[in-house]
């Protein structure tokens, strides 16, 4: 019992001693931070995934994961619009319009990346479709991981966050806003 308690305390000490993630700078050629998302990244347009770019990745990054989430929706929040992981550390971002056909190959610069399951229960990007009433905020969060974790296909955001816990050495985000008006 005493040994187990000791081990738990040591694990806690190790967690608290872990350095905070390095700040990754996330931007986009088409999304402007804290401004309205262009229609083509929503179901009111073509509903493509937006292009993202990032910089200031930690040198020890072994793979990258990205989640798009809406803390203004979901039960419980956030509502998840996109999960993509196993992005190679050489990638400088994500190109626009990641394929929605699971049989289609990923763009060469992110070869090997996998799309996880969103709140729409599909392994693809689906953009904002908030109910009319108030603007919602869409956080594109980028995680730099310190190891190739052998992540399997079909992970949800919760699965992903559990799997990468303790391996996040860099993190950053860009927030975009979208609101639907009542018809």
């Amino acid at each position: 019992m005493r040994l187990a308690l000791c081990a738990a305390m040591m694990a806690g000490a190790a967690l608290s001693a872990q350095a905070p993630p390095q700040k990754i700078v996330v931007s986009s050629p088409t999304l402007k931070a804290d401004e309205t998302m262009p229609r083509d990244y929503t179901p009111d347009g073509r509903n493509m995934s937006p292009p993202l770019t990032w910089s200031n990745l930690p040198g020890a990054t072994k793979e990258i994961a990205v989640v798009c989430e809406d803390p203004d929706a979901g039960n419980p929040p956030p509502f998840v619009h996109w999960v993509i992981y196993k992005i190679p550390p050489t990638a400088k971002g994500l190109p626009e319009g990641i394929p929605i056909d699971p049989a289609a190959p990923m763009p060469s610069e992110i070869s090997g990346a996998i799309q996880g399951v969103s709140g729409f229960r599909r392994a693809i990007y689906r953009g904002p479709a908030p109910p009319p009433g108030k603007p919602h905020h869409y956080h594109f969060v980028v995680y730099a991981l310190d190891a190739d974790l052998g992540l399997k296909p079909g992970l949800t955001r919760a699965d992903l966050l559990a799997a990468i816990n303790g391996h996040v050495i860099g993190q950053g985000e860009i927030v975009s806003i979208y609101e639907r008006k009542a018809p």
Partner: protein
Amino acid sequence: MTFISRRDLLRRAAVVGASAAATTGARAFQASDTERSAESLALHDHVMAAAREPLENLTAAEADLLEAIVARLIPTDANGPGATEARAAHYIDRALGGALASSRQTYTSGLAALDRYSRSSRGKAFTELSATDQDSVLIDVETGAATGFTGSSAAFFALVLNHTHQGTFGDPYYGGNANFIGWDLIGYPGIRTMVTAADQKSLEAHTLKANHKSAYDYESFTKATARLSRRNPDEREA
């Protein structure tokens, strides 16, 4: 992504429709989405009337749109033929005058809403989109993200998907599952009134040959509500 070709008859009709759309393009560009959609659908109906097989309940434009939708729901691909070859849309058209009559108004409003949504979000009629963009539209309809529907678009999607399953995998007597394509697709060996021990063994070994028989090929099956096509009493064999 597999591109689904339609039946030859519909393919010819689509060419006529595309030509008509081009001649009205400039005028339609200045109209609202609703006006453009209504105008386009009406013109489409007019030019297609002489080109396609007779319909029982849907308009030509509705049938063409429905045909494009079912082709993506159960696509023709490496696994074999799909809802197009099974004539699922034909089944739905026929059933909307009978067992599915209560859904007729839902199809009218739902198909019009889907067409408007496709034009407003993707800039083209659904039938003119690439297969990938058609899938993207249908996913938005399925998830309830599409706008302009009476109630949730997800309910309309679920209805059409259910009827597409019926039209692809139901008994061919009702106008779908043409040439037993749906049953062959899932390996269903067909209706049998008697199963011998040898049949059972073959079934368990997945070697039982499909008999391609409808329930109504047997004298013992009758159903007062089942009706043959008004146009052609032998159409179930088509």
